[in-house]
């Protein structure tokens, strides 16, 4: 075995624990698999690694678990914390993920109608649009949003089931709109139409104008 092969062997050997635990990238896992297939000594050493893996898991599993006191203590401490302001401006992608996660299989089964599916698909599309907008804007900390999404004039919009991602993007851009929250019950989104509050008459005029767009299925003013 020449030096390069020895180095490669050593490199591969160092990866064996992660290969056994299944935490290597696909590329590294393939490298290790290929080396194991052609090197019986490495395969023997891999068997040792697997023994260590099994016994480490067993050892940890015999350590037991903390008593219920740990949870009681935690929540006593949390109760003693100062009241927290509800954070309404959670990352939109996370909110959408949470929405999907909150659907039980039974709920999904019941909502198998075309309209409900359209809303679900649309949630994904709109999440994509919002995420794209965020990525274009570059890195931004959660604590330092560029604008306060709680300030301005808002409408509730349900997009038409047939509206595509492109249609919705163009609609939002053309009308300088921003999705502030959603999807809510019934597939509604809270959409900001202006960064400052507007007189009722002005907001009603904007709502009427937006209502004429084929992308909009339903629209109403909201606080």
């Amino acid at each position, binding site marked *: 075995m020449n030096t390069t092969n020895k180095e490669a062997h050593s490199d591969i050997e160092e990866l064996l624990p*992660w290969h056994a635990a299944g*935490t290597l990238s696909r590329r590294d896992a393939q490298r290790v698999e290929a080396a194991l297939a052609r090197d019986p000594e490495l395969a023997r050493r891999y068997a*040792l690694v697997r023994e260590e893996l099994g016994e480490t898991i067993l050892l940890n599993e015999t350590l037991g678990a903390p008593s219920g006191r740990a949870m009681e203590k935690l929540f006593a401490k949390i109760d003693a914390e100062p009241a927290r302001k509800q954070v309404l401006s959670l990352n939109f992608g996370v909110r959408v993920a949470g929405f999907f996660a909150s659907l039980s299989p039974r709920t999904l089964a019941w909502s198998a109608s075309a309209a409900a599916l359209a809303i679900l698909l649309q949630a994904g599309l709109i999440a994509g649009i919002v995420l794209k907008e965020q990525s274009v804007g570059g890195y931004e900390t959660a604590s330092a949003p560029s604008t306060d999404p709680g300030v301005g004039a808002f409408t509730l919009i349900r997009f038409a089931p047939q509206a595509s991602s492109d249609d919705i993007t163009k609609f939002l851009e053309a009308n300088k709109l921003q999705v502030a929250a959603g999807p809510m019950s019934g597939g509604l989104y809270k959409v900001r139409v202006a960064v400052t509050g507007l007189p009722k008459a002005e907001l009603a005029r904007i709502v009427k104008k937006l209502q004429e767009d084929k992308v909009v299925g339903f629209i109403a003013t909201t606080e």
Partner: protein
Amino acid sequence: MQTTSDEVLIARIAGGDRLAMQVLFARHHVRVYRFVLRLVRNEATAEDLISDVFLDVWRQAGKFEGRSAVSTWMLSIARFKALSALRRRPEQELDDKTAEQIEDHADNPEVALAKKDKAAVLRQALSKLSAEHREIVDLVYYHEKSVEEVAGIVGIPEATVKTRMFYARKKLSELLKEQGIDRGWP
């Protein structure tokens, strides 16, 4: 069955959702406890520390940026808390060493082998590793952390993670040899 992801739970916790905190705690507290227990080697201390770890999660959830898995983030917090506790209580290390010495004076290799199977001897050897080696072995094998994640938790370069794991395993072989088990490696 669908389950809410850890990231979604963290987002809800950031908004003050206690139920999300309960779910996250139920999901991870045993593993976090075992990780801490292996470091501090005292059940009461470990139990105290996990409520501190999850309290930090409650407080810091809004700052979590998702650059690592939630479990990796929590193990980082747990490690910091455990090491701080050990620094505050040097006698803990003393207990550790004392316990190791007691085990060292136990049965000679032949008796140990006669009494226990190879797997039991291996587990005993795993317990005798130094805190540094024990930590990395647990993170890789039990907590299923990648090279990158271990580097993040322990705060060392990825290359060091690999070599430290290698030397931990080498030490394990030496401990086994002392107990009469020659693995033919390294």
